[in-house]
């Protein structure tokens, strides 16, 4: 099975590899997948709390080339979007952009899960800080 040019491009030059401070209140972290299944994605977003915009996104992925490319693309797309706009990214968008074959669709699903999980984590942290501020 040959890889699409876009998959190879993301694999060779992955965008936004790295980590953000998982403890920070304005960082959301999502870790999805399992080593036993052959892919684990960690996706993090840094959110401007005033505007709700994602100012930075980072990933680390254990998985095949398509999994790496899906997470790389996800970080690229999330940057500059508000958290709610980012939630609108669908796995099918990733499949189309990277021309993923049917056996690799699960990579795009995992990337969508990672986006949702990172944003859910950010929102949870925000409500906790608000809750803490309200009770203070």
């Amino acid at each position: 099975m040959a890889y699409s040019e876009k998959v190879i491009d993301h694999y060779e030059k992955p965008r936004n590899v790295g980590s953000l401070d998982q403890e920070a209140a304005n960082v959301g972290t999502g870790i999805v997948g399992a080593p036993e299944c052959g892919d684990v994605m960690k996706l993090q977003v840094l959110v401007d709390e005033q505007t709700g915009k994602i100012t930075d996104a980072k990933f680390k992925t254990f998985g095949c080339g398509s999994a790496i490319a899906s997470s790389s693309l996800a970080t690229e797309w999330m940057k500059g979007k508000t958290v709610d706009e980012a939630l609108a990214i669908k796995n099918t968008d990733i499949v189309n952009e990277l021309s993923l074959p049917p056996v690799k669709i699960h990579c795009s699903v995992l990337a969508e899960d990672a986006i949702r999980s990172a944003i859910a984590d950010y929102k949870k942290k925000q409500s906790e800080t608000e809750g803490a501020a309200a009770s203070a």
Partner: protein
Amino acid sequence: MAVTLPIYLDNNATTRVDPRVLEAMLPYFTEHFGNSASRNHAFGWAAEEAVDTARGQVASLIGANSKEIVWTSGATESNNLAIKGTAAMYRDKGKHIITCITEHKAVIDPCKRLQREGYDVTWLEPDADGVISAAQVAAAMRDDTILVTLMWANNEIGTISEIPEIGKLCKDKGVIFHTDATQWVGKMPTDVEAAGVDLLSASAHKIYGPKGVGMLYVRRRRPRVRLVPIIDGGGHERGMRSGTINVPGVVGMGAAAELCANEMAIEGPRLKALRDKLERGVTEPLEGTKINGHPEHRLPHTSNVSFAWVEGESLMMAIRDIAVSSGSACTSASLEPSYVLKGLGVGDDLAHSSLRFGLGRFTTEEEIDYTIDKVVEGVNKLREMSPLYELAKQGVDLSKIEWAAH
């Protein structure tokens, strides 16, 4: 010397046809194209003579008599004929078969089919190095055991089984012993008499011969093994395998067998030295590596290495100029990681992280040097983007995390 890319290190999957083999085959396509079963004209005689010569060459490679060689389309067919043919022939004697969980699918699936048809199959489990011991086989033997089928050497990890010990045991018990020797024959000295093997499968394309040809050795004396054929027709190959013989193919297998017999004493140690260099080269500079298979009792040209925290298919992508295979699920049609590595108790995570290198006759030292550099570079690059590596570096025990399986 510069290397020519891409590099082929997947010789356990198939091998390049040796040019000398091809040369031997060519006249049998156009000049001596006769049917070896045509008994009454010169074309048939020329073909028959060539087939007999090849039979002798293959028999000589395994210490058999040429009358004991049955040509087939490959080792898959040989395994099917050996297993199903024995089961059908000896069904009145018993219905118990012994095999193991790390066999090739061409042994596992025929055994599973027999199981569905009412046979009783014992699935032995190897130790962590992939070895099935004669003691395990002895313990599994029953009064109604009719067949033991165990591979001589494993295709994924290269571990060598205790074949002569198991052969002796089967002889003592009067049980037929079949071995899938596809990866062994032509690489290591083989003597079916000394090893007590009754049925042996081999393939031409693993020994620098053509695809689509194989053979089954069927013992004729002490004991005379009889098989029910799975293909009926013109009664070729002593009635065990009907169908016009692939004359150019068997000529190729014969020539390939003779070359292996002449060259294995030099080639085996040469490949072992290169294999060991490769393993040192990729394990010494990298932490978290594991060589799968038995440290010593292993084919000289096979290496299976797990690189923790890195997924196999992405590593194959990092070394795209080098053809290898992986135990990763992503490289298999089933989306399951290697059942052989799982069978050894290698965790799914390390099975996903494995590469198999299969060296061969045409492998050069320069290619191994190039491969070492690329693999180390690829593993380091992928670990930089691996969340598992990051967690491991932070001292997190990955096995203690509750992952959400998907």
